[in-house]
């Protein structure tokens, strides 16, 4: 199966500050790829290049190519790229003045979906997928911010899923959550990978082990090692990786 995303010689900067050096990496389809590494090593920046959000930061630039199904992201409109590559952030980002329903429907509305039935179907479907439906079915008109942190994060996942992306990017989606909420999101990720390509940045090595099929280890802006998760954790090819996954630094 061809890779879903091919990253070729990616360099990224914030102004003069060089944060990613020559990263090349194939992200497999219908699988979970974890990005690990000490904080500040460029994990978020890497992720934000994958949906061209990086370029929205004032002063940020990047070179190199990223192919989605073989097509260069830069040859396309950024808006249509982001529609195919969804993203969930570290802190839940519900739109605070919108209800749960409208939060999840936001992407559909952007796409011009107006018919009530179509919206309803999309919202219910996305909430079902995100495993949130049962918890909110009676409160769809409540504010999106009235939910607990874990529920808000799943609401954000539902919002991203509602427009049926092909890739779902997650930047430390559990770092603000308690263990139970974390567990729910992890099982959700395992379920989603059957249908989506998931790329997850995580600080939590155990989590990377639990949810991912492939793992990429970043250090100081460089990709040190990439391979099947089991291999990265059990038989790392690089000393640096071994030190990191065995908790000797990081």
């Amino acid at each position, binding site marked *: 199966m061809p890779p879903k995303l091919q990253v070729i010689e990616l360099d990224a900067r914030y102004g003069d500050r060089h944060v990613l050096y020559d990263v090349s990496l194939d992200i497999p389809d219908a699988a979970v790829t974890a990005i690990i590494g000490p904080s500040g090593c460029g994990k978020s920046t890497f992720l934000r290049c994958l949906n061209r959000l990086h370029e929205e930061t004032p002063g940020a630039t990047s070179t190199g190519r990223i192919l989605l*199904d073989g097509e260069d992201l830069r040859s396309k409109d950024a808006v249509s790229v*982001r529609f195919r590559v969804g993203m969930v952030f570290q802190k839940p980002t519900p*739109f605070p*003045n*919108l209800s749960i329903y409208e939060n999840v429907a936001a992407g559909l509305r952007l796409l011009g979906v107006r018919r009530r039935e179509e919206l309803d*179907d999309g919202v219910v479907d996305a909430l079902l997928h995100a495993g949130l439906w049962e918890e909110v079915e009676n409160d769809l008109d409540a504010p999106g911010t009235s939910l607990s942190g874990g529920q808000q994060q799943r609401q954000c996942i539902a*919002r991203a899923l509602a427009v049926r992306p092909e890739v779902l990017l997650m930047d430390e989606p559990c770092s603000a959550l308690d263990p139970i909420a974390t567990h729910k999101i992890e099982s959700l990720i395992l379920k989603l990978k*059957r249908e989506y390509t998931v790329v997850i940045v995580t600080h939590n090595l155990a989590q990377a082990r639990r949810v991912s099929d492939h793992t990429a280890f970043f250090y100081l802006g460089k990709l040190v090692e990439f391979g099947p998760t089991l291999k990265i954790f059990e038989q790392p090819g690089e000393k640096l990786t071994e030190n990191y996954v065995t908790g000797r630094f990081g």
Partner: protein
Amino acid sequence: MRWLKALDRTFHGITGAAAASLLLLLLGLLIVLYDGARPALLRFGPGFVLGSSWDGAHDLYGAYPAIAGTLLSSGLALLFAIPVALGVALFLSEMAPPWLREPLAYVVDLSAAVPSVVYGFWAFYVLVPFVRSTVEPGLASLTGGTGPFSGSPTGLDLFTASIVLAIMIVPTIAAFSREALRAVPRSQREAAMSLGATSWEASRLAVLGPARRGIVAGVILGLGRAIGETIAVAMVIGNIYLTPTSLFSPAQTLASLIVNNFGGVGPGLERSALFEVGLLLLAVTVGVNVLARLLLGQTSEPRGPRRPAGFRLRASALLGRQHHPLPHPVSPASASAGADSAVAAGRWSSHLVDRVPKNLRRRRALHWVVVSICAGALLLAILPLASVLTTAFDRGGGAVIQPSFYVSENPLGCNPGPGRSCSLGGIGPEIQGTLLLLGLGALVAMPLGILAGIYLSEYGRRGRSRFARGASFVADVLTGVPTILLGVFVFAVFLRLDHDSATSALSGGFALGAVMVPLVARATEEGLRTVSTGVREAALALGFTRHRMSLRVVLGSARNAVVTGALLGLSRAAGDTAALFVTAGSSSFWFQGFNQPTAALTPFIFTNFGSEYANLASDAWGAALVLLLMMLLISVGARWVVRSRSVGAEL
């Protein structure tokens, strides 16, 4: 250590007393106005607000025309100002290239620093002729001259007054809206963008919503300012005491009614009626400001249509179905059947994907349309300032380059003709008077304002004490009280205590002090607040007592902000006309004593702006230019001292 604790308490007490002066000012205002209004209240009762005459001969007074004039002019002003201000705020916070935002925001804020007497003067010479010759006839012919567009356009009417008010409140509304938009975290915009929103859609979806309350509060504060604006309105509204029947009717507002009549009336029922008008004005502006401040302190609630009853049914039907109703990514098993990329890509195609290119061009176009509209709004908002500056340089430039202008007395009115040249004279007494009044005002206001500001930032706002939170609130509200009322208040207090100097330099100085105190207190508080809590906590941890922490640590690192606050207060006071007009009396002589009337720049402009004598008119323009340059200098100076947020336009 004991004495340190005692000192700490003393510090709390002293700053607290300064903060209490804010409460006293508001309370005093209420009592004095009520006391002055009592005879009129007794005589006319509630019918006062419905009475429509202002008849000195028969001692019959009613406020209806002024109430109507106020509501119509400020309502109309909001109508003009809101779209422009929103466009400005959106452009500055969301659309302009980052390096351009600061300077442009600064220029917009600067237009809030133009004194209202200068706006009025400019409007009288530039806007009124344009409105009379072009805008109003155009409107009249477009509408057939009926309803609100009936009557003969004179340019000195409700319509022009509304435009001037709109010009004056755009910076306020824009500043508050901008702050509200900026307060929305970047992650919100990014969340929307990662859903595939264009940048305008991201603003609409993720930013405008959460900022709504802040924007509404800014609009309400703008309304309060429009209602209380006195001098600029009095200069262009025509000042005829009739209930307006059309946009082209000359009218009066509550504030203009007071300033136009207060100086000329002695003790008696008319003065009392003016006090009652003041009481009405106070009630309205305080009410409006309280509303805005309450809104600013709250968070927003969600929006969205209620779910129709049928929805539950459809949803449960959906749940009962075996398959998802929409084409959805399939399982890896069937996906791996088609291994090549085309098939893999094809399996995602749904009716949603098809929508993308179709509506994307429209959405992109919409984005650019909105950006252009907002950029246009910004240009429109900057235009008045540009025009005011060029007009002032054009008409007053000749005067201000002559050194004698600053030291000579006013000339006798004269028009140059064949074989006749007029002496230009100067505005020496006015400059002297203004400096003196500012000095007096600062003497009262600076210590009080700065101490109160320290109290508000150290103990107020989030503090536990109800008094402290109340004082913070009152300080906010006081910045929205029309200065004409502060003038009337000081005048009335002097009348009680020292009858002969009710219109004098001393009285004027106190009036300016009253104008300054809340501004200085709030600006100081803002400045101190920016000192990071980290610094404070570190200082407390090191065992600094609170007063030492405030004085050494906080004041030390926020000295700049306090200086800015002081400058802001001075700048506002220097540009104020209404409070001075009813307290400083009228004079064109050099200083004659603290208990004598004094000349000053702004009243000089206000009394001579329509002068039939060319040399007096140029002197007035010279004075306006001097004021403008002073404002610019102060503003640039403050900017230079500390690159602070736009406290100026917000206060």
